[in-house]
């Protein structure tokens, strides 16, 4: 049976918070999970304050000595799978591994499990690329495209997700990625339009744009505001708005460029 020092507790709790926040969990949930981790390790007097770009955590021990840590969060990437696995792990800690602040696993093992969740490759790269194609293709059909347009939209989706993966390796910021993504959607659609006769571009481009729309930021903004985390709610709403503007800018500029070029 292991007990945990306040340093180990803080480290594990911040790690849980970091993974959740980077993968796009709601503020309320991150705070809840971090408090739960400290609680199971025997430090129930905990305050967590989370914003989309940073985590503040203070843990009080039995003599009421308070330790506070701050963690800065950047490069966020949507990964709903990780949110589910981390929540599951915290649930397991509470139910199976720990009782009254004593656990049957050590700090190193918990950190290793978190590390494994972070490194975990759920799907091979080609499958995520093709599922991007599936999304844009079927959205094209949903908005009234024909089967030929479906094929083109599928190709556009695959190409765009592939190029976004490559661009993601350069670590450029979120808005530029979205501008480039929308520009690429329009360019690939226009290029394929030259090769394939008799298709209308509107539904294809909309299908491609649906790959980029900020659905998660939008939902999180509303849920954060509703649970009273006004700072995160506003920040995420502005993020969603800026992403929408970025998409409109990228596609608009590219449409104009092609129009001036004469297509």
């Amino acid at each position: 049976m292991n007990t945990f020092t306040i340093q180990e507790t803080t480290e594990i709790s911040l790690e849980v918070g970091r993974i959740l926040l980077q993968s796009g969990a709601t503020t309320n949930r991150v705070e809840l999970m971090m408090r739960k981790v400290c609680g199971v390790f025997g430090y129930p007097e905990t305050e967590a304050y989370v914003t989309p770009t940073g985590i503040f955590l203070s843990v009080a021990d039995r003599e009421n000595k308070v330790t506070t840590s701050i963690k800065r969060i950047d490069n966020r990437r949507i990964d709903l799978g990780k949110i589910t696995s981390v929540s599951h792990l915290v649930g397991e800690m509470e139910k199976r591994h720990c009782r009254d602040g004593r656990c049957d696993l050590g700090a190193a093992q918990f950190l290793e499990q978190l590390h494994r969740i972070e490194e975990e490759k759920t799907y091979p790269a080609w499958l995520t690329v093709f599922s991007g194609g599936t999304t844009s293709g079927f959205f094209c059909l949903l908005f009234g495209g024909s089967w030929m347009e479906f094929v083109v939209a599928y190709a556009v989706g695959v190409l765009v997700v592939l190029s976004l993966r490559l661009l993601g390796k350069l670590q450029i910021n979120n808005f530029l990625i979205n501008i480039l993504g929308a520009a690429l959607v329009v360019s690939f659609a226009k290029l394929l339009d030259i090769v394939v006769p008799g298709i209308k571009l509107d539904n294809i481009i909309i299908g491609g744009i649906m790959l980029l729309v900020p659905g998660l930021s939008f939902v999180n903004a509303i849920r954060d505001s509703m649970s009273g985390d006004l700072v995160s709610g506003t920040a995420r709403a502005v993020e969603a708005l800026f992403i929408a503007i970025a998409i409109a800018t990228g596609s608009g500029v590219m449409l104009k460029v092609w129009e001036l070029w004469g297509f």
Partner: protein
Amino acid sequence: MRPFDYLTLLQFLWAFLSILGFSVRVNLKGPKIWLLALGGGLSWAFYLVILYFSKSLLYSIFGATLLVCAYSEVVARLIKVPVSVFVTCSIIPLVPGSSLYYGMQAYIAGNNAIASEQIYKALLISGTIAMAIAVVSSVTNIIFRLFNRF
């Protein structure tokens, strides 16, 4: 029977498959992605059916989001997945990506009247979805509080 014919079924299927692709892309795995995809398909099917009966765009968006959020709150708790994951995937088909594009296209073509109409529509639709999600999550909180009290 117009709203329940094979056209609606096909549209349901397209929405289902696109959300299936979406959930694979955000790294979700296991049998739950089928339920997520079902949520996405249902949101679009509810939207179509309500639109047929009410002939009102915003009302049908509101109704579809309410129903699909209720579905998400129930199913997400049953299979122990965070609710926001579920809601995010299910409302994606209703997000006004097409209005955004048509608005932009009209601005580029210099047609300001249509452009403002489309952008206004996109804003109204997002606001409506926001309100519906807010209503469902607040009501769920209230129900849980009452449940815990008694």
